[in-house]
């Protein structure tokens, strides 16, 4: 008994959780195994409420937990399936199904990622990478891995629960997001990238679906299944990474010695997509079409504009339609309505030559972010940007869940432009 309690305390420390429950320390042997059954109804009721309101991403409950009033079943352990209750299915990925759940240990909402085990190959490499990489990463803009439940038949990762993701958020608010919010999202995205790149980790699968957004507007990088650590020297990687829309031209051309610039291109595409309300280079299923989309904006590269490009395996200039480079503001109209520094940052992130693309670290220093409160630049890794006074999301110009609501800000005409 002592051991288990001690171990549970250790586990709490390990996970960096606070012990929220006064009752926890006092629990004696007698109270063990007593399930505070009625409390579940309370929680489930509360949850229902949250679901109704939660879609607006402006949770009036402010994330306040109700745990203080309740004692949870503290006899339950981390690492066992019985400690969590499945609530609803949230989504299905290529190698896992994600459920919303609730921890019976402390009442926190969690996301349960149930990973399909292949009988032949054991634990999928994506799961091993995700877990072992996330173990070393503690940052406010990286999703937190609470627990791993590993049994004979199944493998479940327990993540912190985050309400929505950027793809859903953009569906909910079509026609481009509020530029102020875009700035906050971009800052957090680059902050997360700067952190993982500093730990020499490439995400390699940036796309709106993998950027989780909390009701406050906190953005968290998720799905590290394709991510990998990058050692310095001449090591080559797979060219089959990143969803086509967000894959940089050098990798499309077959380059395999890419580096952190890979993720920056993806972030640049997401930047445009948030402003414009539509993907930057969308709608194709094949590498050459994808390249053509990019050349339509950047122009077809030549050995003069990009030394070494002709050495790349897929470089076949005769296949490309001749394109001249264009101004970003002519391609993506929203940029024309915003100060030039927005376009400048986008241009620096979407450079064809990988080594010339801005680094995440430098992008955070870009004048585009000057209008954000200054203390943001000195935040500790684990502190959310929303802890800084004055940082909060503004209402989006459009919301499909409340179509009658009209913003009186100057943003509305912008949204109508296209």
């Amino acid at each position, binding site marked *: 008994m002592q051991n288990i309690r*001690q171990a549970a305390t250790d586990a709490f420390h390990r996970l960096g959780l606070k012990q929220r429950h006064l009752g926890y320390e006092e629990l004696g042997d007698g109270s063990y195994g007593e399930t505070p059954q009625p409390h579940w109804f309370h929680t489930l009721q509360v949850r229902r409420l949250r679901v109704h309101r939660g879609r607006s991403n402006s949770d009036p409950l402010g994330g306040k937990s109700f745990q203080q009033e309740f004692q949870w079943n503290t006899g339950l352990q981390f*690492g066992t399936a019985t400690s969590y209750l499945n609530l609803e299915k949230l989504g299905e990925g290529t190698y896992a199904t994600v459920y919303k759940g609730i921890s019976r240990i402390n009442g926190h909402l969690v996301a349960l990622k149930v990973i399909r085990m292949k009988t*032949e190959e054991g*634990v999928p*490499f994506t799961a091993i990478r995700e877990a072992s*990489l996330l173990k070393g990463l503690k940052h406010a803009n990286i999703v937190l891995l609470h627990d791993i439940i590993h049994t004979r038949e199944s493998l479940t990762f327990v993540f912190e629960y985050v309400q929505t993701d950027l793809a859903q958020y953009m569906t909910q608010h079509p026609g481009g997001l509020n530029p102020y919010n875009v700035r906050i999202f971009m800052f957090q995205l680059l902050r997360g990238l700067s952190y993982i790149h500093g730990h*020499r980790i490439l995400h390699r699968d940036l796309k709106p679906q993998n950027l989780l957004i909390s009701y406050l507007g906190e953005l968290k990088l998720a799905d590290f299944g394709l991510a990998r650590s990058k050692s310095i*020297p001449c090591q080559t990687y797979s060219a089959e990474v990143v969803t086509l829309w967000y894959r940089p031209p050098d990798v499309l051309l077959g380059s395999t010695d890419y580096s952190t610039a890979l993720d920056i291109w993806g972030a640049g595409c997401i930047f445009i997509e948030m402003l414009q309300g539509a993907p930057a280079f969308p709608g194709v299923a094949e590498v050459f079409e994808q390249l053509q989309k990019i050349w339509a904006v950047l122009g077809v590269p030549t050995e003069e504009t990009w030394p070494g490009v002709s050495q790349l395996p897929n470089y076949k200039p005769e296949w490309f339609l001749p394109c001249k480079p264009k101004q970003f503001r002519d391609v993506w109209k929203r940029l024309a309505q915003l100060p030039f520094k927005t376009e400048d940052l986008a241009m620096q992130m979407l450079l064809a030559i990988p080594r010339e693309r801005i680094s995440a670290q430098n992008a955070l220093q870009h004048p585009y972010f000057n209008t954000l409160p200054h203390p943001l630049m000195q935040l500790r890794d684990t502190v959310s940007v929303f802890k800084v006074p004055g940082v909060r999301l503004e209402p989006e110009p459009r919301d499909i869940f409340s179509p009658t609501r009209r913003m009186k800000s100057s943003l509305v005409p912008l949204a109508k432009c296209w």
Partner: protein
Amino acid sequence: MFQGLSSDSGGPQITRPPPPINTPVMSRDKGWRWAPAVDLSSQQGVLREEFKRVPFTANSETSFEDKQGQFNCLCTAYSKENLVQRLANAEAAMKLCGSEEGQRLGRLLEDALAREARLWKAPVIENGQIQGTDISLVQHQEVILWLREMNAAFQFCQETYALAVCVLNRLLATVKAQTKYLKCIAITTLILAAKVNEEDEVIASVKDLLAQSGCNFSTAEIHRMERIILDKLQWDLYTATPIDFIHIFHALLLAGHPQLPQVWAGAGAEAGAGAGAGARAAQKRPCLQAELWTRQVQHCMACHQLWQCRGSTVALAIITLELETLTPDWFSVFIELLNKAKIESAEFIRCKEMVDECLSSLEVSLPANAVYIFNSTHVTEYRPSGSEAKQVSNWCRKDRHGRKRGGQKAGRRGEREADEYYDGFRCLYDGVTSEGAHGDSGSVGLTNQEACSCPPLQPHAS
């Protein structure tokens, strides 16, 4: 479950031999007053330089005394005159590294050191065995060499091998494993390391890997072991390997001292006509130097004397030994790296001596100059030498015999598939040999040492 976890946090005490009495200790808080250490290190440097100029012949041994005297004079002059100059150089070098690239690499190094500090663990050696197990040092060394062969056979990169060895050592330091499971544990660590490190298109299926490795474990056994290892190490496999440190130090050197590749290339050319091509290649690709060091690290990883040294220390020792022979200005460079890596000087000196011994044994065992002649065609893949090739074929032979027995066993194993997985884990962890397991391995006519398969995991007898 939790008791298992807590055993990890406690950790076995690492017993280290006391430092030699006369070892000069550099204390970082005393700033630049490191005179004794300077003397010692520069002596070694000069010694090596001197030795390098005189060709090694059988009768050169006689002149050793003379050389010692010569060298003593040399080094007093050397250290006194050059000390100030050298320290100034070191400071200049550190300023040079203040560039953006230097800062980035500095952060990388810090991160790698932090991960090493968090996860590095060496098995404790007791009476020629790993503490709490019946695994002898020789068996452990053999299995590490075997892993290197397998890594080459599977065409995984060197980082994968290094990671597998780190995971294996960490596991052996964490749990009490038995010899009969050693090979199963080892191959599973390699498969796990590949899953972490290799691109998925490179990794063959577990079944193919097992067939290629020549050991007749079933995939179910491997998966069970995989689960045990992941649980015991809490899924935290992503550690910093000695090879990572080689790469980081190498990049730091190149960033701070762009002239070094030419020095290396020049030294290569000096070494002999055969190395000419290598030298030219080295100029083109400075990575070749890192490749050489990587090979040396791989060799050191199999030396059990060096287990007690951290990967960062071993990596720096290898680089320093090389720099000493090639660069007159090695000391400032070395100090800069030592400072950055925050390595204890006493530990470093001890480690460096062991690395030197370890590498010289490599030079003896291989044909003359085998390590230093650089043929770029050999760089990308590791080719086993004649004796090693024989070993590989031995494994293959064992495989053929083994597989027949494996067939018989497979049926029985299938019945036991339903075993609680913790039963197997208990056998592994408690270090209690169950009677059943003994009987089983006996029935297939193999002693524990020879057994190339992991006997079926059995429920605890009691």
